[in-house]
């Protein structure tokens, strides 16, 4: 395939293009007719409950399995194994040789991605320094805690400076401090122009980090686009009120559902309801400290879209 590079100067490079891919295993359909695009310099959220087809989708993206129908393009060209040297993949399960020394492991994984041993070691040490795990490099993997192993795996994924980084639940097993450490690295990499695919069922993380998403359920893409656009499509019908006093305004006829967490109420309005009327009803019998009309969260949208059926 040949193209003029100048043609793409004004628009970002399409790092991943999945075009209507389908994968069946025996009788089960893992992925059906799924399309998505990921651009350079963005973070993309692949969302869905467990078993929705996220991992199957990723496997096809990196040639671990082949789609039954549909096509996969990486870096604007049909998939070839050669392009895997430009990809970093962090699977959900930790996969490291238990008895191998951590630094040897990083060097091996770097070499398999085309680095020479010296460069791989140097980069491994630099990243370990940055992620505050340099003392563990000379230990064996099974001497490390789960969180430390996850950091090592994270380093192994980005060691060769890939242009496409695929992270399947990257923050599982990490404490909040380390989660932020890794998030910062991901944001930095994104700003350097890398494309990052972030697969998870934790909606809050996606909401915070991703520009675009694809929501999968039952193997199908049920919702995709930029997070802002998607949210704009859904009405603002979530209210948060912090109050002191009587809570009987919560049974107002315009309220579909209300939860009161000791003065912190989360209110879902009925369609067409006027939030101002709720505010005056609340102020009639209670003192209102805070009143906020929220954008719908991705979780709300997800639940609305898949009909509440989620085991996430």
């Amino acid at each position, binding site marked *: 395939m040949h193209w003029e590079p100048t043609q793409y100067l004004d628009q970002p490079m399409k790092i991943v293009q999945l075009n209507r891919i389908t994968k069946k295993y*025996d009788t089960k359909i893992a992925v059906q007719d799924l399309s998505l695009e990921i651009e350079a310099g963005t973070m993309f959220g692949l969302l869905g409950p467990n078993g929705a087809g996220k991992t199957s989708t990723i*496997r096809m993206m*990196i040639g*671990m*399995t*082949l789609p039954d129908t549909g096509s996969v393009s990486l870096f604007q060209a049909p998939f070839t*194994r050669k392009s*895997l040297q430009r*990809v970093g*993949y962090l*699977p*959900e*399960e*930790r*996969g*490291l*040789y*238990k*008895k*191998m020394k951590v630094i040897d492991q990083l060097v*091996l*994984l770097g*070499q*398999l*991605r085309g680095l020479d041993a010296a460069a791989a070691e140097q980069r491994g040490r630099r990243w370990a320094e940055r992620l505050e795990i340099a003392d563990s490099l000379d230990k064996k993997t099974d001497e490390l805690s789960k969180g430390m192993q996850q950091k090592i*795996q994270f380093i*192994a994924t980005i060691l060769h400076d890939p242009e496409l980084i695929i992270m399947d639940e990257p923050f599982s097993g990490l404490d909040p401090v380390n989660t932020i450490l890794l998030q910062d690295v991901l944001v930095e990499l994104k700003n350097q122009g890398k494309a990052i695919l972030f697969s998870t069922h934790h909606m809050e993380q996606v909401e915070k980090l991703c520009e675009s998403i694809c929501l999968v359920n039952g193997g199908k893409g049920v919702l995709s686009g930029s997070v802002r656009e998607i949210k704009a499509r859904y009405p603002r019908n979530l209210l948060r009120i912090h109050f002191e006093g009587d809570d009987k305004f919560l049974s107002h006829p315009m309220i579909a559902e209300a939860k009161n967490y000791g003065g912190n109420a989360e209110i879902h309005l009925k369609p067409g309801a006027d939030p101002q009327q709720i505010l005056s009803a609340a102020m009639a019998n209670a003192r209102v400290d805070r009143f906020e009309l929220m954008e719908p969260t991705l979780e709300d949208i997800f639940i609305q879209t898949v009909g509440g059926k989620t085991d996430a």
Partner: protein
Amino acid sequence: MRNIFLIARREYLERVRTKAFIVSVVLFPVLMALCVAVPAYIASKGAGQKNIVFVTDDAVLGQALVGELASDKDTREMSVTVDAPAESLRPQLNEQVQTKKIDGYLWMGDKPAYYSNSAGDLELVGTLEDALQRALAHQQLGGHGVSSAEVHAIFAPVHIDMRLVRNGMGANALSTYIAAIVLMIMLYGSLMFQGNAVSQSVVEEKTSRIFEVMLAMVSPKEMLAGKLLGVGAVGLTQVSIWLVAGVLLSSPGVAMMHASSEYTFHLSAWNVVTFVICFLLGFLFYSALAAMLGSMVNSNQEAQQLSPFINMPLILCVLLFQAVLSDPSGRWATILSLLPPFAPLLMYLRIMVQTPPVWQIALSLVLMLGGVWLVIALASRIYRVGILMYGKRPTMPELLRWLKYS
């Protein structure tokens, strides 16, 4: 190719550094040597001196028996006292046997009988029978005027030395026989050991989800090829050390020091070359199957339950080796040694004891290469799917479907 090399190198270095490898390299030859040396040592030394009482009313016969036993170099040391028979003597002797003052007594009556409290001393009774027969023959022939020297000449032991005609040189048959058994057991042990190592490491890579990481970089074929090359190199290292040890032990200098120089362990270059070829072909055949097995299951226990199905032909070879040794060019030995699952061990055994016709060696080699190719093709297709499948073990129809997956 670079990926295959990197994976093979990791596999090799991780493995040769393990204690299990070092132990297997050292322990196996030591065990083999003990298996040969201990029975020989026990047979040569015996369990020390035997105290036996010979009860007979014929004092001359008694002395003759003592003389015969003393002149027989092969028998172990014995101290024999002669006593006249009297029923009163019996309880006394029985008590001496019980208190282990004597090992037993030979009562000479109409029918000679040996009394002891050990049922297993068949060899001793055999020695006594031989000596008694010679003593009796001496007595009777002496009565016919045959001189003692003539009788000795008649009963001089005869030993037939077995030698093989091979390339115009005589080779000791017994040492060839021993070498054949030792090398075949070595081949068997190494094939089993390395096959097991392959299936276990595939299971480990599967359960620890290393495949998820590796397959984003390398293809399943490269993984499998790297693994087989790496473990194969470990096996080759192992058998090389054994062979070098064997050659050193069989070198003339060391052989001179052997107590029983009859059992020299002789290894020719041809033996070594064929050994390595048989090892490599057998290794590829059985280890590809083991990798396939490892990719199908979810735990080491499951792999161990199923591995006998794969190793059946190997086990059968060990059960059959006596039969093949006694008739190396018999119909069954010939047929089995041509078939791929059996060829690495049985053809090797035949080559060791009696060089088979060249066309048979060539046919066996061709069939084996074909078998290896087929097994690797089959195994790599199952492996490719199996390593990413978790949960229940696949059924036969599922496996057949896996073969067709793109």
